[in-house]
């Protein structure tokens, strides 16, 4: 039951993100190149989340648990990598922007970069550890 609740919650969150994104795209008017890039990353994150949810549904349907001790450990490791990536991106993004492009990043861009870097690092390390083992 707990597994099914988790799966339903995941589907709900992914659907909410997609609905929000589609409202944004429909009302944005002309979408610039950098926005395409950001939208692409959000879609990649949602697709990765859907893959994890699909994997869990597959296991539940076979009568196996959605999560076990190895996957919990994988989750913790991936979370810590995501956290480290977030911290470094918060420090590195304004620095790189300043040094390479001579441009001060605005706060909302830094926040977006931190969220994206953390999310991407989480998903890449999660998928890698889940497939290849520790």
């Amino acid at each position, binding site marked *: 039951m707990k597994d099914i609740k988790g799966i339903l919650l995941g589907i709900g969150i992914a659907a909410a993100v997609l609905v929000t994104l589609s409202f944004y795209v429909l009302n944005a008017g002309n979408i610039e190149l950098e926005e395409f890039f950001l939208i692409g990353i959000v879609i990649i994150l949602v697709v990765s989340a859907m893959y994890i949810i699909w994997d869990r549904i597959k*296991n539940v349907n076979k009568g196996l648990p959605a999560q076990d001790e190895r996957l919990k450990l994988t989750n913790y490791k991936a979370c810590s990598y995501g956290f480290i990536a977030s911290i470094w991106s918060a420090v590195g993004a304004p620095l790189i922007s300043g040094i390479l492009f001579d441009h001060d990043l605005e706060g909302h861009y830094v926040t977006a970069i931190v969220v994206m870097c953390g999310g991407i690092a989480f998903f890449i390390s999660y998928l890698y550890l889940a497939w290849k083992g520790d």
Partner: protein
Amino acid sequence: MKTRMKELRARYDLTQEDLAKKIGVRRETILFIEKGKYNPSLKLAHDIAKALQTTIDNLFIFEDDGR
């Protein structure tokens, strides 16, 4: 750490999925333990040994890694 899980599974004619269902873990976990890519917790090692009607000592072969 090496394991005799595959050998014992074959003895009882169990697939990885059968064993996973028996002890309540994902099939991939059994696969990774057999390949030596994941060291199970003591509780999981005990459950596997019980499912394969053996002891932890008999199931896992510990190698001295110099620590």
